[in-house]
Structures are given as C-alpha cells and as structure tokens.
C-alpha cells in the first residue's frame, strides 16, 4: 500500500490561443523525492509549474495537495500551501540588497515594521542548517549568478516550503557551483523538502533525481525510475526518436590569423584590472574555446572584442590591421556576430514579433530595407528560414517573443546572431538552456561555420562542450590567461587546475 503522493496534478490542460501548452498532463510527486521534469524547449514544463504555483489558471484539470483538492488563484495561495518556486528567469530585484529581496512579501510579527532582526537571525540559522551562507547587506546585482540563486532558495525557504519547484536552476551555474548546489538539494531533502527539478542536462538529472517525468509537445510521455534510465532512453522519450548524443567534431583547419589581441587590458574604475595583458590569436576556420569559472573576465573579454567596452591598454588587430577604437557598429560591419550571455536583458525586445526580433540589428540594411522602408515580405522569409533551421517552436512568426518558452527565446537570438557572423563569431554560452536536440543543431551549425572559414570564439562554462568543439582552449582566471591547451580530452586535468588558478608552466 503506497502512501498518498504529496502532489498529484490530474489531466491538466492549458491553451494559449490555439496552442496546447499542456495537454491532459498527469504529474505526481512523492514525499521526500527529487522528481525531474524533462522535455524539449517548449514542451510545457514551465507552463505546468506556473500552474502549480498559481501564476496561470489551468483550463481544466485538478490539483491534489497532501491528499486534498486545492485551487490556486495566485502565488499567494501556493505560498500558503507551502509550495515554493525558483523561476527559470530569476525573480530578484538587482537594486535591492539580499535582505530586502528576502523580506519582500514576508509576513512580519511586528507589522507594519519590517522583521529585520528576526530575519537576520533566521538567515544565520539557515546558513548553518542547509549550508547556505550569504552576506545579507550586499546588493543582488553585485552577486555572481550562483549566489543569486542561493538568495532565491532562501526566499523560498523563508516562506516555508514542503515542495520546491526548481525551473532550470543549473543552466546558469558553472560545474563547481553545480556541485555545491546539489549538496544543498540533498540537504533539503534530508530536512523533509520534496523537489521538482527541471534541467536539460541529462547527466545532472540522472545523478540527482529519484524519478523522471518526460513531457513532449504538451503531453506526458511517461514517468520512470531514475535507476532504470539512461541518457539515450531519456533523449528518445523527449524527442520521440533515437538521438545521436555527444559525438565529437573533427578538429583542425585553422588558417591565417583573423583576430589578434596583443597585451589587451581592461581597467574598470573602482574594480581594477578585469582583463590583464591578454594575448590571443584566433585563426579563420578555428574554434577557440575560453574556459573558466563564471566571473573571471569572460564576459568582459567578449564585450571588448565586440566593441561594447573600449579596452584600456594593448592592441587589437583584425586581419593584421589595428582597430584602435572598436565600436559595435564597426565590428558588425567587419562581419562579427555576438551571442551575449545575458540574453534576457540585451538580446530581445519582448513584445516585438519573432520576425522583427530576427532583423533587430539589420533592419537598416539590404535586403530588409529599401529606400528607408522595411520590406516585410523579406523579413518574413528570413524568419521562416531561421525558424526552420533552428527549429523554433512558435504559434506564428508574428508571435511576440515574450510568449515563447525560455529555450525558444534563446534560439531566436542565436538565429539572428549566427547569421550576422560572416567572418567572426563570439558566442557566450550558446547552448545554455537549450534541449538536447537544439544543442546538437547549434553545435553542428557552429561546426559548419568553422568549415566555411569563420573564426569562432566559444566561451562556455560547459567543459564537455568546449572539449567537443574547440581546436584550442584558453583558460581565464581573474582576467588573465593562464595557458592555452589543445581541445582534446587529455587536456582536461590541466584545464581544471588552471581554472582554479594554477599556471600552465607550473602544471607541466
């Protein structure tokens, strides 16, 4: 006799216009388990969880919580039932301190005053109990993503959670941060919290979960015990057919130098040197990987190359010609495409259509523009091509990008930027948040570009990806390049040690 499950969602249906985001989905979580939810981009995972958190109302279906039927009208109801959620796009106020972010909406014993002392004390408790230390006086915008996520977890714990929904929590974490994060999750389970865990990284899911439910195009495919699951089985459940996973790409083919950085430094007022004496050469037809723990200068390096931040010292050369003051416009004209890391903020205009977002950077240029007028037909055709090439799942090309699933938003940016890159591409975490199939197509696309002679700077926190794709890998640590090694599995130990601050010469 099985005990009643903690949560049971029955026959949940949710439609957006003509699209069935959830189609009679059954979903069940047992007390004390980590239950992974898998599915391609747009499969309906976030939608289902938003329903469970009271953000969306289902068209039909029922939710049973601790054996009783409940109706969730808003997140207030979910919080009252002790359901917590950490969203795919973090729900933190960057300008608030950690403490303020935790305090918002928290009931106070001394209303209307904020329960500051009490919260600080509880924060200390939580730090010790769950291994979640944090400095409450820092502003959230000063924290690396790993710590921001910790703030989100604390927020949920403060409101009291028997069930914690984690929507792609590891997408933005570096491998080391993921280890810490998993330790926290196990700790939470020991303390009696049940967890729903969404991720596209199959190896993580296999390591951390007890059971796995797979969604495909809004429908539930099935639920299996993690013990019986393997990566190929899961991939096939998600996509509906066998998928080739993780095959390597042929290396080599680098030709003449394309982009050279000579002694480039970037000095930020108050912060100091965020890039130190960078010497790098990217050849045409080469993929140069940049490894490193998030926040060691990767994003600054990308911004400098793309002309977003002027560098303070040194020299940058494109095909042997110095570019003293690179600007985004100049670099674009030189054939550079840029996939930035923070795509929520810089990449998209949420209430513009997919088609318009795809020409956001080129609506001024032929063929999209003639005599100052946008040629909607051409724009539409372009969108059709990209949507096909990248398998963007949307109701229509005119759909606002804000309505797409997280992964499909990523694909829109990728589609636009990858097309702009005619000579040079800077890609920061290009497959972050993408499902297995989409990841594979992006990698294939990158490889095809390389074969065409384009030089690619690939910045990624995913070492497997770097090793599979790159001809060479440079490791950044505190703004400095500690060494450059060939992109092959044998380099892995050296890369790991450099990521922690050892120089290549010291390792050899």
């Amino acid at each position, binding site marked *: 006799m099985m005990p009643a499950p903690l949560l049971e969602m029955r026959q949940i249906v949710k439609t957006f216009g003509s699209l069935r985001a959830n189609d009679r989905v059954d979903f069940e979580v047992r007390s004390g388990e980590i239950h992974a939810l898998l599915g391609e981009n747009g499969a309906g995972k976030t939608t289902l969880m938003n329903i469970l958190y009271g*953000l969306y109302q289902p068209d039909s279906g029922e939710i049973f919580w601790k054996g009783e039927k409940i109706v969730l009208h808003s997140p*207030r109801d979910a919080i009252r039932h002790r359901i917590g959620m950490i969203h795919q796009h973090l729900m933190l106020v960057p300008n608030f301190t950690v403490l303020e972010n935790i305090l918002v909406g928290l009931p106070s014993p001394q209303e209307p005053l904020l329960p500051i002392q009490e919260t600080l004390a509880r924060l200390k408790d939580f730090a010790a109990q769950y291994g979640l230390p944090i400095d409450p006086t820092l502003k959230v915008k000063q924290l690396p993503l790993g710590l921001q996520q910790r703030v989100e977890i604390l927020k949920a714990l403060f409101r009291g959670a028997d069930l914690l929904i984690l929507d792609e929590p590891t997408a933005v974490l570096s491998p080391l941060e993921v280890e810490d994060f998993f330790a926290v999750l196990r700790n939470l389970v020991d303390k009696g919290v049940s967890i729903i865990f969404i991720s596209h990284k199959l190896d993580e899911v296999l390591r951390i979960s007890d059971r796995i439910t797979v969604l495909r195009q809004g429908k539930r495919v099935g639920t299996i015990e993690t013990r019986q699951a393997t990566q190929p089985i899961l991939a096939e459940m998600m996509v509906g057919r066998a998928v080739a996973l993780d095959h390597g790409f042929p290396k080599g083919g680098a030709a003449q130098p394309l982009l050279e950085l000579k002694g480039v430094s970037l000095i930020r007022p108050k912060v100091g040197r965020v890039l130190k004496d960078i010497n790098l050469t990217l050849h045409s037809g080469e993929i140069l990987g940049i490894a490193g723990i998030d926040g060691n200068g990767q994003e600054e390096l990308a911004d400098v190359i793309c002309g977003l931040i002027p560098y303070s010292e040194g020299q940058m050369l494109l095909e042997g010609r110095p570019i003293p003051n690179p600007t985004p416009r100049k670099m674009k004209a030189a054939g550079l495409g840029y996939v930035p890391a923070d795509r929520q903020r810089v990449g998209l205009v949420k*209430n513009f259509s997919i088609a318009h977002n795809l020409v956001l950077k080129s609506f001024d240029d032929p063929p999209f523009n003639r005599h100052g007028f946008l040629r909607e037909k051409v724009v539409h055709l372009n969108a059709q091509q990209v949507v096909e090439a990248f398998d963007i799942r949307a109701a229509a090309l005119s759909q606002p990008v804000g309505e797409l699933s997280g992964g499909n938003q990523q694909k829109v940016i990728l589609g636009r930027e990858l097309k702009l890159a005619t000579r040079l591409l800077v890609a920061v975490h290009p497959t972050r948040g993408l499902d297995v199939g989409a990841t594979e197509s992006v990698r294939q696309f990158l490889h095809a570009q390389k074969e065409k002679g384009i030089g690619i700077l690939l910045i990624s926190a995913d070492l497997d990806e770097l090793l599979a794709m790159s001809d060479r890998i440079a490791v950044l640590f505190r703004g400095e390049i500690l060494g450059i090694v060939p992109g092959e599995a044998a380099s892995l130990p050296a890369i790991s040690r450099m990521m922690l601050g050892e120089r290549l010469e010291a390792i050899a």
Partner: protein
Amino acid sequence: MEEFVWLTFLVSLLAAGVRLATPLLFAALGGITNELAGVLNIGLEGMMIGGTFGAYIGALLSGSEWGGALGGMLAGGLLGLLFAFLSITWRGDQVVLGTGLNIFALGLTSFLFRSMYKAGITQFVPSFQVWNIPLLSDIPLIGQIFFRQVPLVYLAYLLIPIATFLLYKTTWGLKLRCCGEHPRAAETVGVNVIKTRYLALCLSGMLAGLGGTFLSLGQIPAFTEGLVSGRGFIALAAIIFGRWKPLNVALACLLFGVADALQLRLQGFGLPIRYEFLLMFPYLLTLITFVIFVNRGDSPAALGKPYPDQ
C-alpha cells in the same frame, strides 16, 4: 543698519521659500509614491489643479478650510483613481494619459468655475490662518522662517519623515518599491501588483490634491485659473533631482521654493531685467534639472512599464 536690512531680506526670503515649497512638497511626496510603485505620473499637475478646485468647493460647502482640505484630497484622489484605471486596467500609455489628465483637469475646472461664476455662486471662502507655534516661533530667525506658517506647511514637512518611514521601513513600503523595480518578482512572492499600484496612485492624487489645497486656501483665499501653473512639473523635477529619496526630494522642493521667492522679490527691486525673465527662473531650473539628471540611473527599474508586460 545695512546688515539689518539684509538679514530682514534673507529671513523673509527663506520664510517665503518654505511657504512656496509646500505645494511642491505635497505633490512631490505623492509623485515619489507612485513612481516607486512603477507608475510614471506626468498628471501630477492635473491632480494639483483638481485639488485647487476641490478645496475651493469643499470650503464653500462646509464653511471650513479643513473641509476644503478634504475636498482637495477627494478631487486629487479621484483623478488618481481615474489615472489608475486608464493606465493599469486599461493599459494606456502613461505619458500620454498623464498629459491628457493635465489638459482634462485644467479644462474641467475652468469650465465649472466659469459656470458657477455666471450663476453668481462666488463668495469668499474660509482660508488657512497662520499658526504661531508656541515657544518655537519665538526663536530668532528660525522661528520666523519655519514656525509662523499656516498648518498645511507643518503638515507637509511632517510628511517627510512619515513618507520615509512608510516607504523604507515598513513591509508595505518594501512591497510597493518591489512593484516599481520588478513587478513580476513581486507577484511571485504574493504581492498584488495591480492593487498596490492603484493604491499608490490614489495616495499620490490625494497628496497632490493637498498641494492644490494649499494654493487655493493657504495664501489668498480664492480660486483663480492658473493657480498651479506648472508646479506639478516642478515637483516632478524635484523627484528626479532628489533621486526618489523623500528627504533629498524635500530639499530640492525647498530649493525651488526659494528660487521662486527670490524671483518674486527681484521683480520688486526694479532690476533692469524684464519681469518675464525673472518669472522664468524656477522653470528654467526645472528644465536644467531634467536635462542633467533624468538619465542618471537609479530610477525604479520598471517605471512607466505596464504590468503584466505582454
């Protein structure tokens, strides 16, 4: 002798500055409230205009200046409610709506006032009288500047610490500010963003209405058209100048108030400058503030954006 003249001049200038800053202060504190909640309210001017008229009617009907204050708050609050309905529920563009509100309030009050005038319903209404605060008003200089004013002035200055407390030290204030920074995040922790913004706009309207009340009942007890003449915009400038912090905003209002007082006095001096230029002075200051400070960051991140956002 010379020194004495200067001192008298300075004291009367500052006393007038404190007085003239009062309507700005009411409106600016209201504006802070709705801006921190994420709503851009260009209609502050219109809400003040509504307040001047509401106060006049209130005083007329009740025969008391405090009844007038109630009328002013009611008129401002109703305009705030209207603005909330149009911008939040109806999701109109906040800049367009605010501008519309200003024109609407000006037109409506002029029309009503003229109709009443034709019908012969004009009479003197009770106005606020100076309250000398015992002891404090006897302090040399300080007493004359701050403590020989009408009660609305004291109320306005009292509201500075109250607003700071409410916005920065209470659970309500934190929720409100979260709505202005990241409304979706507020919603996910159980805050009702729509309700919070409605409330903020109503409060803001009531405060702007009090500012209007001061203009019609705090100085010369009469309603005339053009009493507000741009003070709502000056209050907006003060908010930006003071970076949304009540105390700094209050200081900015004081600066504008003193500038206004100075301008009035210089007109009396018979300087060889056309008085129109002097009249322009506070507005010029406003314009300069907008140009220099408006894009300095630290404005609420979701200011002016409707919610939900698609």
